[in-house]
């Protein structure tokens, strides 16, 4: 035995502060007179478990789990369609059918296309890209709850869970974008492709940053107050209708303050920039780029720090 045990006069609680728990601790009172053996351990060699590491170390830990994140996202993407007959083909069929359904409703039945060039393209880009954000935010908000089994089994940086949801969204987005481009090219509204289209991946990257930030933010918020998850679907619906997905912002020309508000909305910026690149062969304005970049990076930094700050609390969720 390597214990250097030595008798110590009386039991002293390790923390000086008396809590109500101590007062009610009858056993502690009864056995106060017992001999106490003192064990000394060095904090240099032993590290506190479950403690929140500093931001830089946390980022390094996340980076070292990148293989886990990737594997988990890939495994879950393919398991969603595993029990269907058509299997992975659904990942591309589904968005095409969706796009056609929206065209039927908003383009032909409700006829909202009056003042928009290439309405189908406009609609498809709006719907598909917005769907990605919705998926990330909803999945992110639930990620701690659905990942509870993993949380209780392994210790890993918990931000892996919402980030993995976003990764899954990105993997789902790949066939969706393919379907989107297919629809834009094949359907009867002619397109001119310019180099502006090359900027589209940049827009997507910024959108992904934005979605990650929001997903991290809500992931912690729902563990603090589970009621938030009930509000998220309502919130996302309101956001959908205020992001000019189905109609043009020109409808509100008479109310400049509404236009101003909508233009400050980061998802509107995403959709606007994507449409400029893909449909209207123009490079998005500098103001859009600046606004979108600051929204995305700001959301990512804020969401990450907010989530990191609660790192020690997720085990109880």
């Amino acid at each position, binding site marked *: 035995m*390597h*214990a*250097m045990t030595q008798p*110590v006069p009386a*039991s*002293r*609680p*390790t*923390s000086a502060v008396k*809590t109500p*728990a101590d007062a009610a*601790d009858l*056993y*502690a009172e009864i*056995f106060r007179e*017992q*001999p*106490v*053996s*003192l*064990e*000394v*351990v*060095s*904090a*240099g*060699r*032993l*590290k*506190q*478990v*479950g*403690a929140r590491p500093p931001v830089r170390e946390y980022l390094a830990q996340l980076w*070292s*789990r990148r*293989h*886990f994140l990737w*594997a*988990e996202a890939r*495994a*879950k993407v393919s*398991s969603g369609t*595993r029990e269907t007959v058509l299997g992975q083909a659904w990942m591309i069929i589904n968005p095409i059918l969706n796009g056609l359904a929206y065209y039927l409703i908003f383009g032909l039945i409700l006829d909202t296309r009056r003042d928009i060039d290439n309405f189908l393209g406009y609609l498809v880009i709006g719907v598909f890209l917005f769907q990605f954000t919705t998926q990330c935010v909803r999945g992110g908000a639930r990620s701690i709850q659905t990942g509870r*089994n*993993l*949380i*209780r*089994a*392994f*210790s*890993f940086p918990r931000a892996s869970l919402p980030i993995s949801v976003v990764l899954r969204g990105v993997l789902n987005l790949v066939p969706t974008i393919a379907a989107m481009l297919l629809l834009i090219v094949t359907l009867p509204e002619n397109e001119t492709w310019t180099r502006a289209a090359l900027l589209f991946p940049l827009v997507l990257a910024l959108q992904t940053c934005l979605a990650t930030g929001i997903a991290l933010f809500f992931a912690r918020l729902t563990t603090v107050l589970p009621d938030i998850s009930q509000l998220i679907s309502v919130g996302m619906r309101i956001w959908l209708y205020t992001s000019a997905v189905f109609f043009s912002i020109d409808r509100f020309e008479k109310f400049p303050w509404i236009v101003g508000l909508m233009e400050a909305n980061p998802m509107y910026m995403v959709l606007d920039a994507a449409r400029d690149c893909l449909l209207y062969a123009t490079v998005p304005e500098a103001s859009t780029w600046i606004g979108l970049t600051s929204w995305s990076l700001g959301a990512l930094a804020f969401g990450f720090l907010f989530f990191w700050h609660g790192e*020690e*609390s997720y*085990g*109880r969720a």
Partner: protein
Amino acid sequence: MAEPDQVDPFAHATVAVQDVHVRYRVPSTDAAERRRRTNPVARATRAVLGNDPKVVVRALSGISFVARSGEQVGIVGQNGSGKSTLLRIIAGLENPAKGRVLAESTPVLIGVNAALVPDLSGEQNIRLGCLAMGLSPEQAQAAVPEVKELAGLGKSIYLPMKTYSSGMGARLRFAIATAANPHILLIDEALATGDAAFKERSEARMQGLRQSAGTVFLVSHAAQTIEESCTRAIWLNHGRLVLDGPAEDVALRYRKWAWAIAKDKPEEARTILERAFSEREQTSVHVEEPQRPRRYTSRHVRPQQPSRRPDNGKG
């Protein structure tokens, strides 16, 4: 006290649990609890929202001990005595309300209710579990055959995990958790579900882990298991540490106590429990922080120096 720079005489301590308290606030349907709160507004609100009153459950109170390398520590106690909570706290999956746990390396917990991803096959779960524990893809790939063999599930390893029986799931989890060769392994009744052949293989595996200078914690309410395979035992009762000592002694007393409870002899059980309580030696864990040189010394304690120009760049 020893200087921090000198050779650490406690080089073999692997886990230190310092005065850990855990409390939960959980809803209770106890009618007495419902009547207790007299505030009519709070009662009416609860009734309208359909919420049950919350009670505080003390899962662990003032647990302290130090475990060393090469030890296999059994934790005994009746159901609900805080055994699994203690393991989760040691694993760092949950944080105590008061006190702290220090460990040499990241402890790995194998629990009964820790399902992996139910939609994925056993094989995919092995890889995912290895990656989650921080192995690189190559290491994970290399570990797969060994884990498969230890789990011994045959062709079932390729089926989705949701189709597994609880015993099969437990075997797979045990096999995955030992793949990373953890130095500190926490096992929550995992072995109780395996059959005889698996039991033998897993015990050999644990023996190996223990010999590689590791510490194993084993939770079980079967004192027999503890007596056979552990070197030291900790007896918990209602979240309190009753006794901490050699496995044979603690397990024997626990068995006598459990027998007295089972035979409905509360007086005898109380005597055993109180004797154990009075004979236990309390442990007080002191954590010595290594002294680091100060990064910034306040002006009034600084030695006199020729004045330097203030630094006004930010680097």
